């Protein structure tokens, strides 16, 4: 089980968070169907560092951008997109 360091709540169990997938930039409004198709459906599945979203649903509801290694589950950074 991952233990994720929420900047506001401290180190918490994975069970408090909802995984929201790879942290990708949303395409521009006029980027077209192919770009949105890739954004919604196409994933790299790397055996490497992976930047992903975790939403602290059972805590402060902060969305965290987490860098996790998919092989070792090591987490090397946790950042937020906006300050409260």
């Amino acid at each position, binding site marked *: 089980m991952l*233990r994720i360091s929420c900047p506001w709540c401290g180190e918490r169990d994975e069970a408090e968070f909802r995984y929201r997938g790879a942290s990708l930039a949303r395409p521009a409004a006029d980027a077209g169907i192919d770009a949105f198709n890739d954004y919604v459906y196409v994933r790299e599945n790397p055996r490497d560092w992976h930047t992903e979203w975790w939403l602290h*649903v059972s805590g402060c509801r902060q969305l965290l951008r987490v860098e996790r290694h998919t092989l070792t589950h090591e987490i090397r950074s946790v950042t937020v*997109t906006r300050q409260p």
Partner: protein
Amino acid sequence: MIGPRRVGAGLLVDSRRPVRFRFDGREVEGLAGDTVASALLANGIRLVGRSFKYHRPRGVVTAGPEEPCALVDVIGAASEPNRPATTLDIRAGLDVRSQNRWPSLRFDLQSSTRLISRFLPAGFYYKTFMRPGWAWERLFEPAIRRAAGLGRLRAEAGDPPAPAETVHDHADVLIVGAGVAGIAAALRLGSAGARVMLVEQDVTPGAGALLDPRWQSWRDAACSALARLTRVRFLARTCVVGAYGHGVFAALETLSHDERRRFGGLAQRLRVIRAQRVLFATGASERLIACPGNDTPGVMLAGAALAYLRRYGVVAGSRPALFVNSDEAYAPAFELAAAGIGAVAIVDVRAESLAADRARAAGLPVHAGAVIERIEGGRGVRRIHIAKRGGSARDTVDADCVLLSGGHSPAASLPLQLGAEPEWHAPLAAFVPRLEASIGRVAGAARGTSGLASAARDGAATAAGIAADLGIELPASAAMPELPADAEATPLEAFWEVRGRGKSFVDLQNDVTADDVRLAQREGYEHAEHMKRYTTHGMATDQGRIGGLVGSAVLAAARGVDVAEVGMTRPRPYVQPVPFAALAGVEVGAHFKPKRRLPLDEWHAAAGATFVNAGLWLRPLVYSPHSGWEPVLEEARRVRRAVGLTDVSSLGKIDVQGRDAARFLDFIYANRFSTLAVGRAGYGIMLREDGMLLDDGTTSRLGPEHFLVTTTSANSVAVLEHLEFQLQANCADFDVRLTDVTDQWAQFAIAGPHSRPVLAAGVRGIDLSNGAFPFMAAGTGSIAGRTARIFRISFSGELAYELAVPAVYARDAWEALLTAGRPFGMAPYGLDALNTLRIEKGHVTAAELNGNTGAFDLGYVRLLKAEGDFVGRTLSMRPALRCEDRLQLVGVRPVDRTRRLRNGAHFVTAAARGASLGYITSSTPSTELEGWVGLGLLARGRERIGTRLVATSPIHGDDVEIEIVGPHFLDPENQRVRA
């Protein structure tokens, strides 16, 4: 002495306290401290079960949780299936039953499968029963199910599973295994002040130290030193069953009979342990040797025989033979000799060894450079056949038990779960886990040391590394008692199988033989993981701990490669079986899920409501104790003809504020809210980014920068999550704050032609006239002296309002409304009537917003704004989502108005009854039309309006001819809501 095979005092049993229990209905006497297995062995009972596939007679093979054969069902109160007899303590009145035998253990009819076993080869599931299809369901599967299977679960009324609880533990260091390595590490870390949890699956610490008399004083001294360290917690009977990374572990603690009594019947604790550092000192498991007849009752692992003698004073037989490949495995022969029982033969695969010399000096007959080529016996070992390796000399010796040892494999499941690499270690002929120190450390026999003293030294040395990680200073003086020296030993010789006639088992629990492994290889299942699945090798509850590597070695030989190349299958949680009751803990029955109660819960109950679970909410279904449609229709008709009141407090309510609130809602919703005037409400739909509908509801503008979003009750959590995600991921620079106010506001709908005068009588400070407060208006008034939000919105299709007050004032507002409504015959209505009303109006809920429907399917394309981006905009325009072949929302009515509709009934044509065109999502008897009306999702539905189809519900044996109509059954021009 209790029992003819008890030859001395055991460390764990109390010879003054006899205990009687029942095995297969027969009374057996053991001693306090005995396990079922040790008590049976003490009484000379060798046959304890039948095997899974062939129903072969089986005996006790091990002395611990790795036991593959001696599984029993505990019957009576707090029954449990599949308990290893080797870890189940006896108590007075315990009643256990052997498995896989019918009608009795000694005489088993199905053991005739031995005669047809050539029809049950590896992979037989995949081949024998391929054709014909019906035969599997009706013939083979029932027969196999009767023959196979382990214990039986009994879940009869009044027989609940033994209760369990969940405990959360925290430690600086978790040490798994209290053998000498674990104890040494705990002493070192504990005396430095670290908070240590030392966890042992056995009933007492010591492991290998319990088996060697020279280590008794060390163990006693170390245990009393540990007991003095207040920051060291020791837990016995606790098996760490899963390692989940980031320092999180699950452990199953099985309470002793005494503790059970003390804790009111509590049987297990599931411990969730969070530790900064972990040390795996899990020791090693002894391996069997595959040879013909190696499953005969009386065949036991050598270490197990030593354990029964040292722990319980019990011997497996009076004429033991050994079949070994290492010096360590001679230990039981020496201990048995000391107890007056001389081995009849020690068969060592090695030509020479120090242990063989010592045995000969002690007068024990050693057959060096030899193997046992066959073990003879039916319900118990009678004779062994010895053959010289590479020669023709044969010998036959009468024996009543065979002690096998093919060496030891590190017990590495937990480090492997954490991603350790298994590395071949030739001196042991075993895989040793290599784990990054940052993830965890492994010490002692678990990482391949030999001998107790080197394990203890390794434990202490590894503890020093952990202390350094934690920044803990270790005391200069060693806290450890002096270690007895390890004996010098000749290296073992890797040895796996004696090939010959008869079955040689590599997996005793799943009845997998060496020949099965070779068959799998011939049929192309060459990878260890494929062979495992094809043969079921290692897939039983013992997880192949004693024969797993032997199976890999047989596969390697068949492939002509080294066993190091074949490897082992990857272990996953759990290390040993965990009862579901232990996972559930106290979250059973009423505590399975939380209940959400409406603010007026007590009022509804007092008014005679029948409640229904809607998500977590308990909502009034109908205000009547009677089932059936009559009370529902009475409530719904009152709304259509006069006025009704219902509690919609469970609606999700999200307060959205900020300078960019309107801009944010334009991004979230498919329709536009930035143009909504203050004091107005609007219906909105939101899509997922893939273009499908997520939810719908009304949103009101309470101020220029203040909106109130309502969601369906079912989706309130998902919608809030969606909004937070979109705001923080894609609108990070927006000035918007989201607050869930679902629980803060009670909300009631007043619906029906008389709703305006009722509301006008109940509230102050608001002009409700049609001109001043038109359809979709939102405003503020007061009721019972409290400020209320008032919305003119309608879910029923009638003239209707919703009124919201802070939840603490719910009762005042509700009763004020009831008083105001009394002259108009107003009464409350429940969820069923609400549903009837919305179906007639063609409003959708979760049944239609099912995650597979898009705006086009439900006829909402006109709501999609033409300009500006929003979540789901681009993909909702995919041609596939605009295809007329998709399921579209329609209304349905039975042609014969006396027939009922059924939710889930499929639309078919009379000509093609097998091809579903869609299904009914919601249905109800109508308040105004004759008979039933329903909503459904139908392929090319809008085109089919005006045609007839059949709604078929095969599980009800029900076919109804229906006509397809538009989804709005009444007031399609929406006149009533504007009245």
